[in-house]
Structure formats: C-alpha cells, structure tokens
C-alpha cells in the first residue's frame, strides 16, 4: 500500500513537471514562469509580474550571480519553470539552476569539433522546453534534446554539415510536437533553412529553404547559380499564432553581403519574414523588407504579434523594428503591408511605397571607395529583443543611431570561408553616434519617448506589469526606466557588457529580474 502511495505521488509529481502545449499557448497567464525565449508565442517579452514598480525599484538588489567559466559572450535568455532555471552557455552547453539560489543542479557539456565557423562568436541564446524535455541548437549545427531533470542527452540530430559554415545559435521554438529551428551562417555562403524536428525522436519533419532554389517560388530572383550560396540565415527565434497555426521567422542577409553584382534580383527570401504552416512548413506568405540587400541588414529581428486597431479596423498584426531602419506593421494572416516608417536616421531609401517596398535613394550601395550610409552596419536595431506592454500600449526597442562606410570588394566563394564581398568601417560623425531605448506607437512607429544611451547598445528590453522597462548598456549598466516616460529610475554597473535580453520570473512568491552581462548571470529582487 505504501509503495502504491509513493508511486502515485511520484507519478503526480512527474505529471506536474510536464510542460504542456496549452501552457505554452497561455504563457503570459503564469508569469512566475518564463516558458520561451521571448516570453510567449507572440514574442512580446512582457512580464505580468507587478511587484517591482517605479515607486520601489530603488530597492532592487542582487539576489544571486551565476558566473560561467567562459570567455565568450553570454547571450542567453533563461527559461524558468516551477522554480528551476535553464540557461545556455557558450559554445553549446546547457545548465539547470535553482532559481531561488543560483545553485547549479546539473550541466550538459557538449564535446565540440575544432573551430566551427561562426561570424560573431560561438554563442547560444537559449533553450526551448516542452514536456520533460529541453531543446537547444548547437554551434556545430545539431539540434539536441535533454531530460530537464538530469541534463541527460535524449537525442542528437545533425541539421547539416557545419564545416561549410552552418551553425545553430538561437533558442528553438516548440510548437505542438515539433521543434522549430533555423541555421546561422549568412557570412559563409550557406543556403539558409528553417527545420522542424519531432520532439520525441528528433527526426526531421519538414524543411523550408529561405533561399529559393530550382522549382521553388522565387527562384528567378537569384541570378545564375547564386541561390546556392545565397545566405539568408536564421539566427533568432520565431513567433507563432495558434489560431492561424502560422509561425513567423525573420531571415538574414543574402550572400555575399556587400557585393550584390553576383546575385542580381530581389534574392527571396533574404531580409524577409516568412509565415509558414507550423505543421507542414508550407509558405503561406512572405514579406521582403529589403529586396536585394547590400548593407547586411538582416531581418532576423523579433517578429512581434499584436491584436489592435489599425485604420479603424481590429487587425491581427505582426510588427517589427527592422535593422534597415524602418518599423513595419503587417497583417499577419495575409502578409499585407499596413504601415511603415523610419524609427532611426536612414539615408538609403527615400521611403516605402504603398506595398512597403523601399524606394531606394540613388547611389547608396557599397562602393570600392566606401559609401557613407545610415544606419550603420549593426542597423537601426540588431538582435536585441523589443518588448510590448498592454498597460502603456507602447512598443519598446533598443535603437542605434549612426552611419557606416560600406565598401564593395571581390566575392570569391570557398566552402567554409567568409563570403562577404567587401567590408565596412563605422564612421563616427560627432554627435550622431549614440543609442536609445525608444517607445513607439505600435500602430504607427511614431516615437513617444526616448531614453538616450551614450553608446549604441545590443541589449534587449523587458517591460513589466509593474510599469517598468529594463534595459542594458554596452558599458555594463543594467537599468530600469519608467515605462510611461523613459525616466531613469534605477541603474547598477554589472562590470561586463550587456549582450542579452532581460526576463522576469517569480520564486517563493517574489519577483525576480534576470540579465546576462559579461560572463555572469545576474538575478535581482527587492530587498
């Protein structure tokens, strides 16, 4: 009898530990947890926790720090489920921590082959979760599943041979019985794709090529055989609409980056958002922000889903602040362009036409002598996550101001080597090189307030129901702003560059805010 009770208790515990699809769909209803990279399927990076407010944020203190034994950047957004935190560590390790104390529960250390090619560091931005499993992409272009109680490897599937420049750096997205993940490598002449793998077995269920090949829609947008090395990588987590069963993914630059002569045409689906059927990977629609990009303005930025009135009609929209300097509002059921406007200084386009296609300014492409163009190479924003708060009805974004000199050079493809066709120098003109946290009207992109940063930041932002926006800086500060005004209410130097996006969770009934900086993960709470 006693054994039966014990067994029942263990089974009940195991049942509680399962993360269900319903929980993922309703992620914002349990704000003590943080279930996925951007917080929920809509990618709003908003916490419903309200204990920390403008009135008491001055009482924030460090509760614990987890120091990783790494020299690479720590870019992870932690997940927290039922008091356990899951983080990734460069290059492709995973750790589980007690969310109350930071004590490590287990660590998965991946044995890596020598020197996988990654343009911007051997980094990883986080895990995905479902059931009793965690999922991660690896720098050597695999997808893995781990037992979330022990860290034991359950399956390990190679996406593609990493030696030709492919890698996995972003947190996967789990939708129903599939793990969705894309490949990085846009600077190595890869042919990008988004894959779906069976959560139980790791078998591939579908693949969508983000560079249109023979027999595929858009093949004619690549001159000659340029599609074979067309880049269009995927290195940030997508979004998902359960009602439409569509998943939305941003794609990177075409290859080579700065010499478009070898790939004449629009180069679909580079610098685009693609809306895919989550079950089959079939393309429902696409929207290309920067046709025939020559400035490396990836469109991998977070695709945020909102339901809101636009031109007097309630619409299901997708909004995004693009690296090319424009903010976009699209109908996410159809891909129809609804609105767009520049949210930073840009000089490459005179505007957007009625379909959202940029009207290019003359002579703004890269040249052998260098051409000074705004925004700079890192764009109007980069991979830093934006946030949306229903309470303020504002879209928060880390904006970057400044221009670069774009140079065109030879484009000679060699497998596994950089394939960029030029180079870039940042050109710092006095007074116009700075960063900002900006609050935009989500329907129009109009700036409502700005909190200026001395140096452009790559850190993301988090809004909370307490009325705060958390942000980080390149010189190592973590700060809390008033979500309604942008006023700086609290800050602390963490001693390392903030190259990650914040999140929030609760443990023991108390709100915590977490951010990675340098090689440490810092967790804050009220004293």
């Amino acid at each position, binding site marked *: 009898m006693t054994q039966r009770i014990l067994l029942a208790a263990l089974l009940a515990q195991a049942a509680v530990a399962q993360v269900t699809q319903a929980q993922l769909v309703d992620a914002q209803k349990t704000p003590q947890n943080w279930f996925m990279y951007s917080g929920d399927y809509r990618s709003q990076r908003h916490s419903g926790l309200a204990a920390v407010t403008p009135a008491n944020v001055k009482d924030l203190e460090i509760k614990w720090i987890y120091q990783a034994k790494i020299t690479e950047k720590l870019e992870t957004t932690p997940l927290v489920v039922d008091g356990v935190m899951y983080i990734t560590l460069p290059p492709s390790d995973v750790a589980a921590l007690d969310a109350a104390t930071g004590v490590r529960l287990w660590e998965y250390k991946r044995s890596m082959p020598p020197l996988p090619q990654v343009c911007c560091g051997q980094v990883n931005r986080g895990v995905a979760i479902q059931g009793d499993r965690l999922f991660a992409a690896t720098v050597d272009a695999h997808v893995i599943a781990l037992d979330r109680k022990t860290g034991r490897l359950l399956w390990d599937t190679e996406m593609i041979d990493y030696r030709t420049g492919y890698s996995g750096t972003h947190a996967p997205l789990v939708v129903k019985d599939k793990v969705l993940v894309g490949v990085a490598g846009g600077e190595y002449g890869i042919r990008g794709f988004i894959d779906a793998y069976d959560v139980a077995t790791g078998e591939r269920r579908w693949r969508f090529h983000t560079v249109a090949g023979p027999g595929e829609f858009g093949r004619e947008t690549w001159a000659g055989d340029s599609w074979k090395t067309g880049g269009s990588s995927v290195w940030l987590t997508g979004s998902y609409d359960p009602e439409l069963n569509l998943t939305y993914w941003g794609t990177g630059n075409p290859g080579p980056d700065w010499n478009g002569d070898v790939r004449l045409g629009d180069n679909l689906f580079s610098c685009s958002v693609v809306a895919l059927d989550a079950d089959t990977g079939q393309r429902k629609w696409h929207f290309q922000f920067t046709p025939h990009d020559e400035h490396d303005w990836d469109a991998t930025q977070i695709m945020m889903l909102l339901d809101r009135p636009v031109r007097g009609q309630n619409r299901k929209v997708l909004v995004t602040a693009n690296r090319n300097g424009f903010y976009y509002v699209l109908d996410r059921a159809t891909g129809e362009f609804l609105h767009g406007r520049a949210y930073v200084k840009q000089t490459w386009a005179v505007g957007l036409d009625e379909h959202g296609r940029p009207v290019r300014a003359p002579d703004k492409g890269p040249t052998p002598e260098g051409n000074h163009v705004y925004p700079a190479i890192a764009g109007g924003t980069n991979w830093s996550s934006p946030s949306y708060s229903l309470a303020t009805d504002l879209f928060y974004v880390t904006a970057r101001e400044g221009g670069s000199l774009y140079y065109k050079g030879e484009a000679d493809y060699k497998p596994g080597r950089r394939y960029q066709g030029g180079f870039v120098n940042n050109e710092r003109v006095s007074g116009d090189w700075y960063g900002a946290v900006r609050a935009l009207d989500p329907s129009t992109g109009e700036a409502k307030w700005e909190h200026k940063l*001395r140096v452009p930041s790559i850190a993301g932002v988090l809004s909370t129901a307490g009325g705060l926006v958390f942000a980080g800086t390149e*010189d190592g*500060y973590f700060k809390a702003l008033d979500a309604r005004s942008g006023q700086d209410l609290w*800050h602390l130097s963490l001693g390392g560059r903030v190259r990650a996006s914040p999140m929030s969770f609760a443990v023991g009934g108390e709100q915590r805010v977490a951010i990675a900086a340098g090689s440490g993960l810092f967790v804050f709470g009220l004293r």
Partner: protein
Amino acid sequence: MRVRTAQGEALQGLLHNQDEYTIHLLDVREQVRSFQRSGLADVVFPKQSLMPSFAKSLSAGQIDDVLAHLCGGKQ
C-alpha cells in the same frame, strides 16, 4: 576637455575614462577627478588641443627632431 559642475566649478584636463553615468578627468595637476554626469552642468570637448603651441618657440626642424625622438627615432 572642459567640465563645469552644477555648483559652478570649472575644470579642464584630459578625458581619463567615461561611461553611461560617469566621467573621469585627468586635470592639469594630473589628479583624477570623478564626476556623475547628472552633477555636471556642462561637458565640452574642444577641438583645440590643451597643449600650448610651439610654433613660435621652436623651428620646424626642431619640431621634427622632437617628433623623431618621441617616435623612437635616432637624434
């Protein structure tokens, strides 16, 4: 660089370090002075060097010699 505090104190020197919230200035007596940006009324980075001009006290050849010495060349 030149700074003026909210209390009206004016200083000049070399920029020693700066970040989002602070400025550190090496003043003309080679003392490091630290300031919160919020406590400064004015921060100016003049284009003209703080070094005095040697145009009237040294010839062009002498300036070349000084530069050669500073650059590690032979006298």
